[in-house]
């Protein structure tokens, strides 16, 4: 039998080009995602069931990480109080607990989402379905955990000095931006981890130390004017600061200044911070979805 030399006899018709425009690509991906919403639900349900089956902690698991974060924050604040001699403000702990829930969601979801494609090798290499559902289902499962923690938090907040104000309407907006930002990062990183297996170690490292570059335990104003501005470059920072300020009764559509322990006035919020985070979250999600969708056809070859 003579095998034709592949290089000499390449087909006349080139491979079907899928380099459709950005809008068309995203629209196609979004359409497929919408059709697979039941699968997304089933996969998220799978992750939740596995997490709570044969688990000693039960729902306590959902609040473990936020509690740990708040504990760490307590120590950081005690150190500050000891070294500066300022008073410990208990009202800050309500906001810190809320930010801890947000951080726990982000860190947990990103960890699971990054590994989601490589953890489901047998599915990705054998059965066709829009692969976007795998990282998104990990995020949805983590969202369920965080909702439990949020309910626990909602019960605790009144005792920590947080009152119901009109500014609380910002919380759903901020939650939406947080989920969108997490989905954007999760889609991109799961895809990157499929091609380069050390991405998940990098993500672990970033999540371990990222808490120091994000205003969870501290507030940006503690770093002074320049430090606060730099920290706000982190797309997650305006979301967390927004949570803190809206719990404190501030609307987010005007500039907010706060007095630091040393007595200086520092601008802690500008309205465009919200737009900055929203741009990262929404544009980031669309770009990640586009990249993911373009690359998912070669996933099976790289697993």
């Amino acid at each position, binding site marked *: *039998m003579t*095998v*034709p030399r*592949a290089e000499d*006899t*390449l*087909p*006349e*018709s*080139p*491979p*079907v080009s899928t380099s459709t425009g950005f809008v068309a690509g995203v629209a196609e991906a979004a359409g497929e995602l919408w059709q697979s919403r*039941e*699968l997304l*639900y*089933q*996969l998220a*349900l*799978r992750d939740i*069931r*596995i997490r709570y*089956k*044969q688990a000693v902690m039960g729902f306590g698991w959902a609040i473990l990480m936020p509690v740990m974060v708040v504990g760490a924050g307590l120590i950081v604040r005690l150190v500050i109080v000891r070294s500066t001699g300022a008073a410990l403000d208990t009202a800050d702990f309500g906001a810190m607990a809320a930010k801890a829930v947000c951080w726990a969601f982000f860190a947990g979801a990103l960890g699971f989402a990054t590994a989601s494609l490589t953890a489901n090798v*047998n*599915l990705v*290499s*054998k*059965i*066709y*379905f829009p692969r976007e559902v795998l990282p998104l289902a990990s995020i949805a499962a983590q969202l369920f955990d965080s909702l439990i923690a949020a309910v626990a938090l909602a019960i605790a907040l009144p005792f920590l000095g947080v009152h119901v104000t009109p500014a609380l309407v910002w919380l759903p907006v901020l939650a939406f931006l947080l989920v969108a930002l997490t989905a954007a990062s999760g889609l991109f990183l799961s895809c990157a981890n499929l*091609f*380069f*297996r*050390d*991405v998940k170690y*990098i993500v672990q490292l970033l999540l371990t130390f990222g808490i120091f570059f994000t205003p969870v335990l501290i507030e940006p104003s503690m770093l002074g004017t320049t430090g606060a501005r730099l920290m706000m470059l982190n797309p997650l920072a305006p979301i967390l600061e927004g949570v803190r300020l809206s719990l404190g009764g501030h609307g987010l559509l005007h500039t907010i200044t706060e007095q630091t322990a040393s007595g200086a006035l520092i601008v802690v919020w500008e309205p465009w911070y919200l737009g900055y985070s929203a741009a990262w979250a929404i544009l980031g999600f669309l770009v990640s979805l586009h990249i993911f969708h373009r690359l998912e*056809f*070669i996933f*099976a*070859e*790289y697993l």
Partner: protein
Amino acid sequence: MSPQADSPGVFFEHVWKRFRRGEIHDSLRDLIPAVGRRLFGRGEAARRARENDFWALRDVSFQVQPGEVLGIIGGNGAGKSTTLKILTRILRPTGGVAAVRGRIGALIEVSAGFHQDLTGRENVFLQGSIMGMPVALIRQKFDEIVEFAGIAEFIDTPVKRYSSGMNARLGFSIAAHLNPEVLIIDEVLSVGDFRFQEKAFGRIQAMSRSGIPVVLVSHQLDRVASLCTKALLLQQGVVLHQGDVSECIDAYLSGGMNLEGSKDQGSPIRLSACRILGGHNLWWGQQAEVELDAVITGIDRSTFDCVGIRIRALEGGREVFLTSTRLAEIALPERGTVRLRLSLRMCLPRGTYTLEPLVFRPGEDQVLCTGPISTCHIEVAHSPLGRGTVDLEPRLSLNLLPSTAPGTPVAS
């Protein structure tokens, strides 16, 4: 593309698929030095990578229309799985066009989505969703699925406590209740125990005869012969033969034999052809006329002394019948091309059989070499009065003996 532009179908036009061997950087730590090498090595690494490429499919084309069942056969590494993965959109072709019109149901890796810690019930919904079934449909067919798998009493037990057979049966059962417009089947005919295999085969038969386009990959050639309306033989990614199922199976089986036989090139005899005259589909009891051509070149008669033919059942490969010129006391000439004509009355049960020409060593039943194989398919015209490996043409009669019941009239 096709006359029926809207009907479901499978279209594979000049499909090429290239895989890369080696040099896949799967960590950033490997990538960075590799990029450096590529930049400073003047394309050395890129050239080496291109040499390592291999083509899993080369210019493969076929079409499957409604009502057609295509069987893809070939040895390991022939490109069968790659073809199915392209059809199911897991892989994308390097060149050419692969398109499936209609909702695909794939009986491939039927329990890949199972999670060991979840119960059978939870896994039915999970696996069904992964295969693209709407949850409402799963709910509606749930009882049927469990009933078919025969595991009703274990449906709320975690799958990790299932035997591997139960696992596979449940997986198959979910896939078998998809409502596809195009069916793709990969080697799932050997699921579970014998009884379940028969049940699964019946189900696949019913699905493939419902008029939808079907693509089937199997190593069980008897199943291919009985299910498929056409076939495709692949070898190392190239289409060797396409069309008639029997011809493809013949070419596949003969191809394997030739590779074995190619070791002794200096053989004094070569079997060049084996033909069944008047078609490969025979009725029970029909006379099959078989022609066998042999080229005798050697004078040394110590290596062989007769030619013959062996009939095997394709299912299981069991020998059904064997005859030779020695048994018929026909002597072979010293040299020249001979044509042996055999007339065989095919009193065989329904099924597919292979006719295998053979050369025997002198004085014993040891085979020196084999020739090209033909298959024939035996249909049974009447309903057979029994079953088994041979047809004994039974005639049954029943008489009531007069001594056992005195006084009653005896029916004759």
